[in-house]
């Protein structure tokens, strides 16, 4: 039943798959983000209370969502690597860390820029903002831990344990606005409830979320390719790729 999964143990197969998926995701991301930005910044009306300042959510919400999604991918693949010692799972986790860190940083920065005119402050140590900052530190810690251990196998295992342990922060970020009182507002879009947002604003937001998701997959494919080439630099099939100028 799980025969197909063994193909993902073959580096040339994964490399070829990532190679054709990367531009597919890239084009999808570009279309979603360009249309989303146009609908969000030009077509969508101003908010009744915040005026045009609310438009920063078209970047803030997708990157905050991605900061958690990427972490879940990283933690899951780290667990798979720890249990089954699957090489590809480790490459996915390694590839995801800087992408996730970037999304987290964008979420924190855009939030700060919005916070100053709306709340009256760039930063407040409330549960949501603090746990999101902690997520950035976990990402940075993961990358630092990986690069500080010389032996690649040991580095991969140590970093994977950190990634798995750090996953407890994800529900804390998500539920922080419900468990405690915070300055940050509760979620606008939840699965169970009708979104508290007008459809003209919701459409570009969902498009941007899809665009950021595809952007992550695009970057993941590009970095997975790099990861495979680095690890397999001395193999015959990579030498062949280089000889044919196809890298």
């Amino acid at each position: 039943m799980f025969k197909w999964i063994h193909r993902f143990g073959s580096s040339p197969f994964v490399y070829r798959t990532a190679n054709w998926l990367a531009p597919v995701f890239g084009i999808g991301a570009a279309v979603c983000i360009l249309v989303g930005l146009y609908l969000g910044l030009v077509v969508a009306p101003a908010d009744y209370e915040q005026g045009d300042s609310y438009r920063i959510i078209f970047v803030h919400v997708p990157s905050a969502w991605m900061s958690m999604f990427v972490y879940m991918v990283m933690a899951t693949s780290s667990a798979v690597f720890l249990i089954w010692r699957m090489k590809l799972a480790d490459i996915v986790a390694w590839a995801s860390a800087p992408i996730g860190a970037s999304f987290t940083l964008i979420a924190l920065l855009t939030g700060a820029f919005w916070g100053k005119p709306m709340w009256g402050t760039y930063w407040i140590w409330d549960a949501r903002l603090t746990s999101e900052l902690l997520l950035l530190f976990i990402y940075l810690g993961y990358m630092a831990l990986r690069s500080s251990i010389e032996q690649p196998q040991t580095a991969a295992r140590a970093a994977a344990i950190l990634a798995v342990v750090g996953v407890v922060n994800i529900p804390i970020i998500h539920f922080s606005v419900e468990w405690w009182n915070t300055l940050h507002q509760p979620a606008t879009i939840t699965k169970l409830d009708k979104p508290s947002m007008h459809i003209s604003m919701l459409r570009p937001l969902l498009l941007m979320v899809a665009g950021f998701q595809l952007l992550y997959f695009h970057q993941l494919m590009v970095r997975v390719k790099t990861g495979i080439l680095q690890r397999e630099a001395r193999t015959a099939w990579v030498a062949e790729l280089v000889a044919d100028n196809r890298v």
Partner: protein
Amino acid sequence: MTPKRKQRLMLVALMLVGVSVAVVFLLKAFNSNIMLFKSPSDIVAGDIQEGSRFRIGGMVVEGSVKRNDTDLSVEFQLTDTANKVPVTFTGILPDLFSEGQGIVAMGSLNNSGTFVASEVLAKHDENYMPPEVADALKKAGKMPGTSVNYGGSTVVQP
């Protein structure tokens, strides 16, 4: 699954459970410190020492905002719909500050029970809509009320 993998799976699961339990206890212990603000009811109940600095959160009572003509000082009442606390503040208020709006203020209680704020932040709610839709909802009396979450219990002001 080989026994070795089963063992590693158990190890990862145990690690996750252990860390989760530890974090739950930690967060429970610090619960009141993680809360960003106290509600007007907490203050009326008298769990706060006079002069200690803390944050208060609530909704600005409609019709209670009194601005001074000569300087930047402003007085208003803050409510969680159950109790009210008078607040004074001197300085520039955030753009979103208005009657009925949720706010969070930092400061301390003086001896007459007034909260003297040194900083006022506006709390935004999760509702987004164009001005025309907001007007239409207001006319129909269906405007979603501003809500303030007190950590577990959400108070909605219609």
